[in-house]
């Protein structure tokens, strides 16, 4: 159950973005990627998740639980994404956002509803099923988005500066909430961040991407 990057490199128009990267992330480990702006941190996440823009080329291998990911479309990779913003679907209620994520393996109307209600409760959002996502506070939205990702039963999770838009007090709370759930479910996670405090709290491998040929 681990996410393995094997000499992964990205290039744009023949120019490598960063030196080839090899990394094994164990279940429940949260690895961090740091580096200067524009080095391609988010592009690396796009490549792993299956959203790489056609202008980029990728070399190396990415495997998850031994499955090679490159040939799979994004929806078949079982990799969850957490963005800087929560990106809840604006046309669905909070509960329906979670239901959208909930794995198909949970069947039956009552069972699915119970799973969503349980997740809402874990996120401190009990009774919020029918609420408009736009009416939630920033912290509530972040927790709902994480729960939506976890309900899809992902084999790995990618986090793109997940806490950078939260103010300091909220940041610690959401970070603790997110990491606790990842560790409890033994999900390997890769997080891009600018904040050294994120890396320290994650406690996993910390990679710093550098532009090749410089420093």
């Amino acid at each position, binding site marked *: 159950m681990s996410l393995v990057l094997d000499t992964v490199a990205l290039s744009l128009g023949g120019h490598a973005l960063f030196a080839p990267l090899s990394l094994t992330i164990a279940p429940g480990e949260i690895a961090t990627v740091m580096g200067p702006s524009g080095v391609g941190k988010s592009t690396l996440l796009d490549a792993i998740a299956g959203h790489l823009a056609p202008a980029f080329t990728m070399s190396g291998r990415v495997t998850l639980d031994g499955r090679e990911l490159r040939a799979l479309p994004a929806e078949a990779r079982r990799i969850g*994404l957490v963005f800087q913003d929560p990106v809840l679907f604006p*046309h669905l209620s909070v509960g329906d956002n979670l239901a959208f994520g909930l794995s198909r393996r949970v069947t039956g109307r009552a069972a699915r509803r119970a799973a969503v209600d349980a997740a809402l409760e874990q996120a401190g959002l009990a009774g919020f099923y029918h609420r408009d996502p736009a009416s939630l506070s920033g912290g509530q939205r972040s927790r709902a988005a994480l729960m939506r990702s976890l309900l899809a039963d992902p084999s790995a999770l990618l986090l793109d500066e997940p806490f950078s838009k939260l103010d300091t007090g909220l940041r610690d709370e959401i970070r603790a909430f997110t990491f606790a759930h990842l560790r409890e479910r033994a999900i390997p996670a890769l997080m891009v961040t600018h904040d050294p405090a994120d890396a320290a709290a994650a406690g996993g491998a910390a990679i710093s991407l550098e532009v090749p040929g410089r420093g």
Partner: protein
Amino acid sequence: MSAARDGRALRGAVLAVLGIGVIGPIIAGLALTARAAFGLLPAIGSTEAGLAPWAQLLALPGIATSVKVTLFTGLGSTALSLTLALAIAAGLRDRLARGGAARLLTPLLAVPHAALAIGLAFVLAPSGWIARVLAPLLGLVRPPDIALVGDPWGVALLLGLTIKETPFLLLMILSALTQIPLRQQLAAGQSLGYGRAAVWLKIIVPQLWPLIRLPVMVVLAYGLSTVDMGLILGPSTPPVLAVALTRLFFSPDTAALLPASAGALAQVALVLAAFGLVLATERAIRGLGLAWIRRGGRGRGIALAARIVAAGGRALLALGLLAMLALVVWSLAWRWPWPAALPQSWSLKAWTGAGPGLGRALAASLWLAVATTSLSLALAIAWLEGEDRARLGRAGWAQGLIYLPLLVPQIAFLYGLNVLFLRLGLSGGYAAVIWAQSLFVFPYVMIALSDPWRALDPRLSRAAASLGAGPWRRLFTVKLPVLLMPILTAAAIGVAVSVAQYLPTLFIGAGRIATLTTEAVTLSSASDRRVTGVYASLQAGLPLAGYGAALMIPALVHRNRRGLKGARS
């Protein structure tokens, strides 16, 4: 990547449908018209190629005047609409004002050309509203004996075209402005001592022009080849070229089809020459404008001029709204002697007495609108989704392809297209008219939907994919619902365009399909304004109801979804 292959396949399928369904018929129609223009029309026994049709065309009485009036009204209305639209846009202070203006424009955008022209005739005519209001002031006892509608120079037609096209260009400008950092550039220019109007002319307009060049050409092509507006507001002897040609095409003497086809080609040449003129003017202004900008004049004096032009534009738009009101008032009037400003007695008799013809025309218009809009919307969504999946932007040629049906004068290929449909056994049926109308509905639906579709937050789709949703589930459960409002707006535009179609219904319906528009145009030359008012009111009301539904439905469906309010772009 399979999604990309999937996307390219979808895009290929859409292009094939477009090639066979839209581009093919236009080319075939043009080719058949061109053959007839040089004497080849076996259907009427003319099999000898030659220049005789051209000689007949040139020998038509008043043909030179027709061309002159066509150029005056087409070029004049386009230049005037563009000037007014730019002046009005420059006068709108902020995004809020621009949003409000876009909403105020809706009725004038929705109203079909023919309905607006009929209403305008009711207002401008010697016995119309303006003369009635002025009569007591000027001491007139009878309607003034001057040709205020159908004047030989086509001033009334020019006015009507300007009123109809200014809102369209204004909307195009407002939507293009979202791509320009307007506020910062205005601030930067004003901090250097330039007046607001000067910043607009020197900084904003040059950036705006490439974004609105195609819409301006659509307006120009329409202005040079309008038939329904030309019939109602234009001069009659001789009429504008497209009206003269329509008369020839429908003349009982089938030999007239040959010079008519030659005229149709001449119409294409006229439009192409006008496009050339636009590009030459663009080049000239670029040179002169650069010199003007380098001189560094702060242009504080042009502020007043800009305000006056904008006020003129707003007055003209108000005249348009008055024209729409005139339709309803006439349809409800019973006794309305001259020079009373309002009817002496009101009645619903014109509505109730219109007979089953009105219901049939309404049903035909409605059915054609629903069919053409659904077809166009499905094609547009397939195209845009194909672009998304293939992760491809739009190539310039594809953009040109979308605009093509709006740039070629309708009269140039509709006759040829009908010949083709006759051979295929389609002519005169609903299928053929739906096909022909869709040629013009699809481009507008596509143009309306493209920007909001591309403005959709791509992370929504990615979030859905990371939750395991495949491309079809992403389309139907995330993209389409979030885009509900722009999709319905595009549908409303499609309905308005379909309802307004006159020439395609006339040519391809072979006179057998009567819609509100064909009936209203026919009635406009008849004497009873009340009956004409009924048809034209309904003709204007149908698209307006469409716009109303496009506003109401998303507001209802998404009433508890604050994140989607104001998401309309």
